[in-house]
């Protein structure tokens, strides 16, 4: 399956890209997407972030489907 990953703020700068596409096995979860990302950008492992699936906060146990949008949400600082 193919999922789109969005990176923001410090994570975006660290990775040097704001949008990636990942190819994952069927049955993959958000955790698998994070693992794949960390293998491409090791520095991500040193940062805290929440995870979102299709624009909703989701735990890393959430299963993924083809076409899903995943986002890594570093500590927010709006307002």
């Amino acid at each position, binding site marked *: 399956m193919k999922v789109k990953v969005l990176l923001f703020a410090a994570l975006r700068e660290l990775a040097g890209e704001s949008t990636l596409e990942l190819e994952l096995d069927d049955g993959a979860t958000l955790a698998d997407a994070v693992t794949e990302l960390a293998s491409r950008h090791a520095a991500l492992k040193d940062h805290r972030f929440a995870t979102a699936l299709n624009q909703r906060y989701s735990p890393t146990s959430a299963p993924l489907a083809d076409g899903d949008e995943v986002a890594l949400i570093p500590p927010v*600082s*709006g307002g």
Partner: protein
Amino acid sequence: MIEIVDHPIDVNALVRCDDAGAAGGLVLFLGTVRNKTRGKDVAKLEYEAYGDMALHELRKIVEEGLRRFEITSIDVVHRVGTLAMGEVAVAIAVRAPHRGASFDACRYVIDTLKETVPIWKKEFFEDGAVWVGDRP
């Protein structure tokens, strides 16, 4: 009104829109760009948002605010992009028949926004820049 904009916030428009004139009071909160953080001079700020999700989270906060407090309406506008000292980053307007509930609701909205909405602020100093809250 719940919006994320990339231009200066029209605070007058926010204060003006009350169709029925039913609310007797309006509490307006403006989050503005401070000139110092922990004693260091701030040159400018940049705000970035995960737009669609931020709007969803803002709507959730507004819905919850309307449910929890005896108020008439909540409007929220957050600005993204580059902001200079003194500029308004976020505006929240709460209307209610009675002021107590509007102060409480306004506090609830800004407090919750700062915890949950996917918007990020980068502070620029003379010697570099840092995303607020970014600590490994």
